[in-house]
């Protein structure tokens, strides 16, 4: 196996904060964050559920394609990939709903257009989660291996770690990792039925938290081993990073773990969380004290925040670096969370700022700390990313800003 030197060459994102990672980061840093609201997409049948919905005046399926196009265009442009480089890349997609939106859209349109007829049974005609990657490879001409992970909230974070592993082994040359999650009746009602949904606000790590709010989003992250730091867009200085990026970002310590104790939570004592993060630090060879900040999973649910908060405290104690959850600002994008939160975070880092956490008002004594409430300088160093999902799944990795 080659020595790990995985670099993130490019990224793109679409969130409720903007149609690019750049715009999303700018609004996040400036505090231009709007709370979740009643959904307006025509395929969504219950306007009582608040979610972070990307505004769009066209059809739901058009929006889905536009989101995927936008994130890939932004990531490819930032990475400066040529057509040949795109073709030789491999695609790893993380999604829960995939293009299930097609079923919901077709069903609601059929009912809307035939109000006098008996409601048909909803059919499930989409081709499964793999349909998203099929659309992408055809559209963008990607010839390398394409693979889709459908693993609930860790789908795209797992995809990032798997991609890094394959790059380290030399099995693939370049990875385009995409996370995609549309708003679906399936997931809105699903999380509500599990009593994991907060009707009022998403409040990560807050004593007043009572659930998550779903966020619609998409992102792409392009990774490569030993990226040549030469010549992009007229940059002739061989020592400087590619012209599109001010800094170099290295992916390290990717760790996947599945715990079979619980289908829906990672153990409220924090032991599992502590262990997973410890493995990442050991794998990356980065000491605890070098962590600049933590991009936490922080969903706003009772159990997740308790287990994650306790785990972080167990590990770092009084020396806990700033902890930030992005879900108070953009919602929980389920399978897309890994790619989306990474992309938005990187754009914030490029702007020199670690954003604050939104939705917090009161410390939970069971957790013992408050997430960061102010923007802070994004120093060079190691940033820790954590995700925990249904099925006992855990992902953790570091991104080193140089």
């Amino acid at each position, binding site marked *: *196996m080659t020595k790990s030197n995985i670099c993130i060459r490019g990224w793109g994102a679409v969130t409720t904060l903007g149609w690019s990672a750049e715009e999303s980061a700018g609004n996040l840093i400036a505090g231009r964050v709007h709370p979740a609201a009643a959904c307006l997409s025509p395929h969504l*049948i219950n306007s009582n559920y608040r979610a972070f919905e990307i505004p769009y005046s066209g059809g739901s399926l058009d929006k889905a394609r536009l989101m995927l196009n936008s994130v890939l265009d932004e990531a490819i442009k930032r990475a400066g990939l040529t057509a040949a480089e795109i073709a030789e890349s491999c695609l790893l997609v993380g999604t*829960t709903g*995939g293009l*299930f939106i097609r*079923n919901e859209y077709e069903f609601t349109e059929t009912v809307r257009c035939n109000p006098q007829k008996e*409601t048909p*049974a*909803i*059919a*499930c*005609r*989409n*081709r*499964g*989660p*793999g*349909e998203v*990657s*099929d659309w992408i*490879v*055809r559209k963008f001409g990607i*010839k*390398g*291996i*394409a*693979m*889709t*992970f*459908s*693993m*609930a909230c860790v789908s795209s974070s*797992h995809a990032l770690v*798997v991609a890094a*592993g*394959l790059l*380290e*082994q*030399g*099995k693939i040359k370049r990875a385009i990792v995409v996370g995609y999650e549309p708003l679906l*009746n*399936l997931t809105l*009602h*699903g*999380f509500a*039925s*599990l*009593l994991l949904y907060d009707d009022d606000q998403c409040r990560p790590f807050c004593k007043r938290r009572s659930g998550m709010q779903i966020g619609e989003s998409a992102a792409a992250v392009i990774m490569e081993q030993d990226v040549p730091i030469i010549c992009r867009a007229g940059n002739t200085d061989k020592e400087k990073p590619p012209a599109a990026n001010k800094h170099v970002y290295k992916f390290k310590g990717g760790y*996947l*773990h*599945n*715990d*079979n104790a619980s*289908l*829906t939570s990672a153990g409220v004592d924090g032991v599992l969380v502590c262990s997973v993060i410890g493995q990442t630090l050991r794998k990356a060879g980065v000491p605890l004290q070098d962590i600049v900040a933590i991009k936490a999973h922080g969903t706003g649910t009772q159990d997740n925040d308790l287990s994650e908060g306790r785990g972080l405290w167990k590990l770092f104690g009084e020396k806990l670096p700033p902890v930030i959850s992005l879900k108070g600002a953009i919602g929980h994008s389920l399978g897309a969370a890994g790619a989306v939160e990474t992309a938005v975070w990187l754009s914030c880092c490029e702007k020199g700022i670690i954003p604050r956490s939104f939705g917090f008002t009161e410390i939970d004594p069971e957790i013992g700390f408050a997430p960061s409430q102010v923007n802070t300088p994004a120093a060079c160093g190691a940033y820790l990313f954590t995700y925990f*999902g*249904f*099925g*006992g*799944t855990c992902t953790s990795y570091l991104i080193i800003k140089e």
Partner: protein
Amino acid sequence: MQKIMNQVKDKQKNITSPTPVLAAGYLGPGLRPDHDADWQEDLLPLNVDDLVLEIVGQPMRRAGRFIKMVCCGALICLKKIPSDLLKNKKIGIFLSTGLGNVDEILPFITQVFKHDGGFPSPNQFANSVSNAAAFFLSRICAINGVVLTVSQEELSFESALWLAQSYLAAGEIDCALVGGCDVFTPTADDYRQRMDLRPDNSRTLFMGEGSSWFLLGKNDAGKIGDILPVLLDCGDNGLPVLSAGENILWECSEIISSTGGQNKHRILLPGFRLSRFDASFWIENGWFVEDYLPCCGIHPTAAAFGLVRAMLGPGNGCYVHYNCHTSGRRAIVAAVKS
């Protein structure tokens, strides 16, 4: 011809050695472990609860049919290995499925869309996530660690197999439990549409289901065969314009040559996308054909059924499974029995 040989060899440049198969097990629509039981499409799906009691040892009341099939198929495989041999081994689970838990998703979403207000079941929603099945399996088998659920339509199983080989080669795991599972969910017409099956892009056969698994390892002790490095590509291989059959024949023959298995029987396992499949062409060119699809019916991970069944069958030789996606992407898996 030399250029063609070089192109094929280039594709295999990074391929590592064959992966030992320690155990295998399969379940088809007839629900008889490791057997080709009779079944009829219009009677599917059969009730799997008795089989669950037999294989798992207790009912799985909170699980839907997909989850039960995953667990039964995997345990049929895993139980062939004495538990002592797996003690202290890092085992990864690589579950592949093209369509996932459609059996849980459909009733849930039907309740959601009911005009007079339905009662969506939270249990059904939690189980509808594709990796819920992997969770149940990991719990029954007491496996912690790497558990991945791959969903790549009709190339799902081959993708999972490729990934498992990568993890084994990297030393991340000692063994890999790799399987493919898809279940029959009514109606057959909807199922065909879900899989984008048309007469011009697939074989005309009944729809079916299966849960079929390999346990792969890293050393040869006790192995029942080997899986060669999986070949996944985009189909744009630069080969000259020969007939589709001749192209496939060439690729498969090259793979057999790379195993040193030229003197063994060569057996093709044709995937369901080979719509213009001509068995006589292969026989004329010195191959045997094992048409497994009538035994399991078309489903996205049928490749798993075909390969596992071949590995456990009475014959001996080099088996090559070939299938492709409507985009032209292809997957070739070669297996050699010990």
